[in-house]
């Protein structure tokens, strides 16, 4: 027989071992080692096993002994949810990760516009719902201790009767200590609690091994094999299928809801998840775990009913069976299994609840009072950690006092079901929030309040028994004597199983109120935005909501962030953000994106609603931009984006087509030009050639020619060859210019000198006179260019005016204007101008204005344009001038030091 002291020694040893494992895991995580284990899917799956609590470990056998196979629904529901991971859990995990969700209350509050009211509501409901559950764990541990103290098969009671209250107290203290020590090491809830998770994984293995060991002992050691065990099962009181269909379906639903809604399950399933891939592995591994946990429950129950004396507590068969057979070590292992189940549940449940209480109740109150003005300096982290630690102790104390108050009575399974019913009230709001964009805050508040009230009235209060919390009269005649308000026959629907009755009424009224409230209310912009982001989590994972951050100084934000994140972390975060904004040093700009990221970071520590409120204190308020609203109207946003993209594309296309068309026109034109160039050049070469040939034939063949005639003919030939040479020179020059092979002889000089030279040369070369009007004062402009080439252009322009000006008293005005750093020189005569149709062509080669005389080849202006282009200038026809006008624009040299160069230019 194991003595109680021995048992306690082993138990303490086990606890010390757990502390050591947790401590080692924390150390390894800090040093960055052991990720293969700490972040493995195995540990993730095992951490989910906190679903299997002391209730499961001991209570399932008791449940089976009382009602046959019904106990299995408690495992089937979660298995279904896990197998259907693709539908819901995947979404929840993604939302949890991208919105840095810290708890189920945080998720609901965040979805419905970061409403703190909802967060408080859910937190209070969760605390009320889970406290009996924590009490239940304390009860299961003390119950199992007491059986060692007073073994069932030893009459006379050799062991001392155990002081259950004291035992429960010390268990509660130990659990509180462990949770405070390993659950509040880091403030950021999204960072994993490696110590806790590893300890839970170890406990998961211990409880599974313990139950399987007892199962194997029972089936092969006591029953004599599988076949015999099956036969014995069929012979027993629970040998036939006796499960009520309604209870089967309802309890499966309830257990499925609990897996999602229980704060501790949400904690391990969503918050502690750090790799989405693990979810799919858990989708089969966790059902496997559950299956193994429930495999031996029925055989243990049946053999226990058979072997143990009448009146033994079936909730403790797992322990009393091995004990009655003298298997002390097995009993010890079973005890450790039960102890593990109870402790791991309490640790995580407290952790999850304390986060909720601290983030959603304590912090908002602290913020609301003077202490909480966020502009103050000083570390606020200790406040958050302290509030979390106090919350942990508070919740464990609550569980302990509930245990004392309830007197540790009642079957384990019944208390567990009540707790499930309470948290299941979150289900409609949670599902609606994730799948229905129309769900609103008002609807959620309605649904939660009504569902919770109905649960309290039909499930929680009746559980204290007739004349417990509710008077027997209320059971008989309904609340306030209203017959339709009887806790076990609401609206006159009687004859139902109480659990089915309570679950069906609470969940259906909850859902109805939620949907009705959502349909009639109107959500705020932030709410709609969050709704769109939650529902379409896989479409736009990145948040779009912005702050009007201009008012917020980055310094203020920095001070606040330092207080919550700690100086080192906050500075690292701000530096990273500054780098994202491509700022080499200093603080980042308070852009909406940055403030958004900061809020997320804070949310991971203090929850979305509190972080939102803190940032709002500094920043003033959220702005919902037009773009954000378009994101809310998701479909229209996509369509708008698509159509604007189409518009851009089509504009680009038409632009390209336009360019192509003009390029094509240009090419066609060039081709025509080339043809006409060839024909022109042949024509131009041919004309002087013809006259040279004819006159040289005359000189050769004619006998009688006077010396005067000979001289005349020879000089015609001479002048024709000169014209030919000039033509060829021009062509050569143009070709050189066009190929860009010309070398410019850049020098500084005054414009006046160049004009003087050009005017003199042009007048000397031409017989026809033209009056040239100049304004020498304006011409005092310095140029740095190839002055000889420029003179050539001016000569050409002046010569053209001399040749083609049709006026009786031809005049040419040369005006110089300074336009910024450009100098414009206009050559305007008093002729008739050039017809519109010809203007586009005058700068082309061989282009001659029709109807004009003259012997030019039509290369002059083409050459001018080439030269001026080379000189970085521009030559244009002036369409608005009185007669024919050309404007030459050139870059001017600043006036300073101009006088030094005038002489140099003059001499050049």
């Amino acid at each position, binding site marked *: 027989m194991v003595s109680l002291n021995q048992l306690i020694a082993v138990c303490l040893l086990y606890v010390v071992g757990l502390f050591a494992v947790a401590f080692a895991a924390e150390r390894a995580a800090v040093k960055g080692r052991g990720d293969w284990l700490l972040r493995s899917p195995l540990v993730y799956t095992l951490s989910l096993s906190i679903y299997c609590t002391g209730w499961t470990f001991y209570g399932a056998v008791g449940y089976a002994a009382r009602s046959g196979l019904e106990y299995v629904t408690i495992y*089937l529901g979660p298995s279904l949810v896990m197998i*259907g991971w693709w539908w819901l859990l995947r979404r929840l995990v993604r939302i949890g990760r991208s919105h840095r969700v810290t708890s189920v209350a945080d998720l609901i509050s965040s979805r419905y516009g970061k409403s703190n009211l909802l967060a408080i509501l859910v937190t209070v409901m969760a605390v009320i719902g889970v406290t009996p559950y924590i009490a239940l764990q304390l009860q299961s541990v003390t119950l199992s201790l007491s059986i060692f103290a007073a073994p069932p098969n030893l009459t006379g009671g050799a062991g001392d009767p155990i002081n259950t209250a004291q035992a429960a107290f010390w268990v509660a203290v130990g659990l509180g200590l462990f949770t405070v020590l390993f659950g509040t090491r880091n403030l950021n809830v999204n960072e994993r609690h490696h110590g806790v998770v590893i300890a839970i994984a170890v406990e998961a293995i211990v409880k599974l091994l313990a139950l399987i060991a007892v199962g194997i002992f029972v089936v092969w050691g006591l029953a004599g094999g599988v076949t015999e065990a099956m036969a014995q099962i069929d012979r027993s009181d629970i040998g036939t299928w006796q499960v009520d269909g309604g209870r089967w379906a309802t309890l499966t639903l309830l257990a499925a809801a609990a897996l999602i809604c229980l704060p501790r399950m949400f904690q391990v399933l969503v918050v502690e998840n750090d790799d989405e891939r693990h979810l799919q592995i858990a989708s*089969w591994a966790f059902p496997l775990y559950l299956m193994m946990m429930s495999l031996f429950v029925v055989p243990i129950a049946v053999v226990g009913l058979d072997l143990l004396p009448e009146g033994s507590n079936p909730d403790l068969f797992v322990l009393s069976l091995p004990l009655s057979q003298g298997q002390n070590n097995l009993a010890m292992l079973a005890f450790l299994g039960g102890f593990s189940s109870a402790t791991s549940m309490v640790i995580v449940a407290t952790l999850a609840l304390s986060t909720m209480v601290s983030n959603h109740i304590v912090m908002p109150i602290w913020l609301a009072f003077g202490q909480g003005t966020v502009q103050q300096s000083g570390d606020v982290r200790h406040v958050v950690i302290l509030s979390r630690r106090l919350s942990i102790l508070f919740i464990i104390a609550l569980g302990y006092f509930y245990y004392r108050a309830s007197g540790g009575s009642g079957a384990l399974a019944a208390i567990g079901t009540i707790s499930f019913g309470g948290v299941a009230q979150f289900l409609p709001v949670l599902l609606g929030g994730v799948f229905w964009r129309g769900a609103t805050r008002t609807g959620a508040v309605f649904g939660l309040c009504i569902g919770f009230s109905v649960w309290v009235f039909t499930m929680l209060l009746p559980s204290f028994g007739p004349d417990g919390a509710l008077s027997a009269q209320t059971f008989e005649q309904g609340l306030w004597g209203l017959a339709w308000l009887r806790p076990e026959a609401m609206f006159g629907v009687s004859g139902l199983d109480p659990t089915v009755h309570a679950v069906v009424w609470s969940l259906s009224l909850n859902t109805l109120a939620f949907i009705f409230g959502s349909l009639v209310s109107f959500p705020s912009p932030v709410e709609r935005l969050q709704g769109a982001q939650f529902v379409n989590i896989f479409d736009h994972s990145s948040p779009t909501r912005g702050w009007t951050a201009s008012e917020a100084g980055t310094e203020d934000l920095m001070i606040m962030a330092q207080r919550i994140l700690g100086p080192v972390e906050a500075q690292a975060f701000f530096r990273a953000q500054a780098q994202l904004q491509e700022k080499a040093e200093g603080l980042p700009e308070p852009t909406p994106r940055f403030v958004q990221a900061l809020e997320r970071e804070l949310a991971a520590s203090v929850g979305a609603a509190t972080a939102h409120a803190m940032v709002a204190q500094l920043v003033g308020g959220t702005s919902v931009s037009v773009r954000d609203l378009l994101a809310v109207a998701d479909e229209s946003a996509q369509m708008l984006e698509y159509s604007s993209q189409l518009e851009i594309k089509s504009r680009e296309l038409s632009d390209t087509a336009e360019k192509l068309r003009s390029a094509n026109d240009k090419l066609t034109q060039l081709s025509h030009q080339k043809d006409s160039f060839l024909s022109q050049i042949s024509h131009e070469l041919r004309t002087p050639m013809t006259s040279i040939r004819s006159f040289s034939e005359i000189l050769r063949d004619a006998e009688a020619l006077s010396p005067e005639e000979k001289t005349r003919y020879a000089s015609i030939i001479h002048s024709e060859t000169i014209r030919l040479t000039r033509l060829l020179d021009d062509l050569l020059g143009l070709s050189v210019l066009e190929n860009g092979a010309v070398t410019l002889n850049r020098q500084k000089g005054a414009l006046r000198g160049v004009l003087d030279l050009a005017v003199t040369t042009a007048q000397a070369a031409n017989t026809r006179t033209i009056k040239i009007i100049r304004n020498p004062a304006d011409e005092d402009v310095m140029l740095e260019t190839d002055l000889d080439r420029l003179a050539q252009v001016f000569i050409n322009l002046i010569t053209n005016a001399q040749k083609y000006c049709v006026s009786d008293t031809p005049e040419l005005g040369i005006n110089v204007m300074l336009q910024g750093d450009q100098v414009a020189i206009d050559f305007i005569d008093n002729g008739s101008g050039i017809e519109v149709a010809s203007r586009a062509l005058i700068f082309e080669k061989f282009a001659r204005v029709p109807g004009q005389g003259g012997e030019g080849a039509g290369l002059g202006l083409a050459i001018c344009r080439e030269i001026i282009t080379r000189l970085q200038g521009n030559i244009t026809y002036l369409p608005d001038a009185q007669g024919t006008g050309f404007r030459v624009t050139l870059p001017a040299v600043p006036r300073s030091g101009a006088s030094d160069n005038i002489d140099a230019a003059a001499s050049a």
Partner: protein
Amino acid sequence: MTTNRPGSPLFLARRSYRFRRLMDAVRLLPVLALAFWLVPLLWPVPDQASDPAVTTSHALRYIFGVWLGMIVLGVFLWRRTARQIARENQS
């Protein structure tokens, strides 16, 4: 070998088609499990000892058999789809 010939995209198309059907299976697996586990609703609940009844050993075999089947299917689907799901999540 032959499927890698140029001009035969059949292999790739077939693979992505297969993947999509496997994802359909992933989605439908919980429906199947639910359907199987709701079958006990149809079993008779005897009021008297003489009424026809389903023995507990039979019920145990059925429920745990379905359970094991779902787990095996889950493992199979995980083996076949996990890599592709992770790839699509990254892109």
